[in-house]
């Protein structure tokens, strides 16, 4: 095909299909303005940002902000603390948050009474749809411990000796991570089990029958049929989990933490929020933000690469 013929065909294509392109334009423009344009703003990490100058015109300072963040200033102690907490909270989140929905799905798969199962699923998925403000509001009120009043959960915990008498859960650093993880499980475990439940339901009953004929028991059934059957889903979900590991739910942390729990609760994104949006050290916060985004991106790429190597499933 000659060049002009190709050109003509393209013109013809657009003339026939202009409606299709008209339909994609709003979405493209939206992402350009609200997702891609701010990405250029990551430049702030290398600038000495002054609001009057804007990001582009502010003075370029190279890696100065990163040096401030990493070596021996007041901020670097906070930053490394936040870095450690991000890592720990992510690991705990993965260790508890990943298997729990799978176990839940396995259990739901055993419930053969249709009505009971449907009602249970409906209730277990519900907390996912409640807002972080509502959930944390509940947590704060249920765990409140004051001179005149004590929330019912706090009272139960004191009675069961699960928390030390006199310690206020909300204001005690060592209780923050369990509180955060359990709150997350309460909110998301049911909802996250949907994917696994669907995977289990998708396994052919013939496979179970075959195992039965061979005299297999329940545990062997799970080991040799159910798990292999949901392997692709497991891999993909694990990749997503690891990829999004550093994207700790900062909204929930901001709503749950306070000055007395910073030492265990402060993660990089809440650190960014505090020094950037509350304290207006924009460039320093931008540098920490940049760091966070970069590591997150590397994790996504890395997790995907590994999953492509290990199994044939990948995200793209």
């Amino acid at each position: 095909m000659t060049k002009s013929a190709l050109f003509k065909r393209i013109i013809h294509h657009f003339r026939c299909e202009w409606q299709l392109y008209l339909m994609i334009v709003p979405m493209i423009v939206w992402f350009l303005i609200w997702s891609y344009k701010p990405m250029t703003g990551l430049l702030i990490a290398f600038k000495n940002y002054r609001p009057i100058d804007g990001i582009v015109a502010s003075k370029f300072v190279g890696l100065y902000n990163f040096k401030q963040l990493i070596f021996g200033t007041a901020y670097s102690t906070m930053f490394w603390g936040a870095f450690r907490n991000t890592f720990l909270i992510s690991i705990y989140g993965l260790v508890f948050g990943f298997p729990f929905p799978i176990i839940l799905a396995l259990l739901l798969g055993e419930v053969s009474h249709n009505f009971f199962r449907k009602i249970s699923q409906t209730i277990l998925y519900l907390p996912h749809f409640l807002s972080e403000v509502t959930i944390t509001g509940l947590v704060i009120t249920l765990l409140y411990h004051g001179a005149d009043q004590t929330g019912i959960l706090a009272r139960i915990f004191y009675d069961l000796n699960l928390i030390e008498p006199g310690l206020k859960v909300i204001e005690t650093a060592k209780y923050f991570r369990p509180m955060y993880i359990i709150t997350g499980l309460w909110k998301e475990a049911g909802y996250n089990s949907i994917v696994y439940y669907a995977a289990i339901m998708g396994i052919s009953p013939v496979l179970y029958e075959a195992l039965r004929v061979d005299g297999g028991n329940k545990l062997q059934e799970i080991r040799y049929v159910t798990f292999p059957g949901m392997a692709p889903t497991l891999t993909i979900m694990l990749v997503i989990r690891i990829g999004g590991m550093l994207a700790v739910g900062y909204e929930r942390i901001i709503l749950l933490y306070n000055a007395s729990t910073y030492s265990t609760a402060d993660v990089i994104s809440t650190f960014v929020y505090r020094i950037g949006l509350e304290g207006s050290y924009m460039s320093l916060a931008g540098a920490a933000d940049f760091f966070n985004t970069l590591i997150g991106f590397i994790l996504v790429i890395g997790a995907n690469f590994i999953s492509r190597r290990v199994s044939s499933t990948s995200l793209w």
Partner: protein
Amino acid sequence: MDRLSRSDIIFKIVAYLLISALVVVALYPLIYAFSASISGRAAYETGRVVLLPVDLDFQVYKILFARNGFWISYTNTLFYTVFGTIWSMVISATGAYALSKRKLLFRRQFNFFVVFTMWFSAGMIPSYLNYMGMGVNTRWGIIVAFGVQAFNIILLRNYFESVPKEIEEAARIDGASEFQTFTHIYLPMSTAAIATVTLFYATSRWNGYFWASILLQSANEKPLQVFLRTEIMTYRTLIENMVIDNLTFAPDSYAYAILVCSILPILIVYPYIQKYFARGVNLGGVKG
């Protein structure tokens, strides 16, 4: 299965028991919040409210409904939810439709353009500066600048791709334009996916807190979640300072009452849409 071995039966019993326990755990805080909000002061403070309300008392709702800012924030949230969801749906559905068409030039690149935003985002500070620069500090700003999510677009696109081509071809032969095909064939045939994504967008609008609390300046524009948060953090002094003769509810009841007001609308809509989303989540798959 006809014959159940002993291990099967044990496993089943364990499953039923554990699921029942988890259902109780999931539901308890919500029931308790409701009960505590309508229990009398003495009953609450002496710890007699454990599951069901004791000494019914509705004074707290009277006070809450008369509270400055409650109805304003409630109406604001309704506004954000309705218009925000419409805005997000229009952009997502049209975009997803175009992405689902093989004849779209640069389809792969467009897909990548959308999916990339799921894995890489600008971060809080650049986003904040962008919002400030674009003047996102009003009601309409919040509607326009938020809510379009790549995941939902991919979900819709996958669903549109599964609509049989023959129906579309028949419509095109009858002279339907691209746009008519979209509104008259694809939308009616994709109600499950549309309902799911609408639900996702609506809940994220209803629940939206963080950016609204940072960006919105005027108290008249703040959504329910922002109001809720402020009240939760300050209600003890608030109730103390209220001059109410014969306070018949415990201060905590006030917090629980606001929480109930934020949960209730979701609880009312939830049963109707519940049947869609379980299917919808799996429809989306994860492939970009």
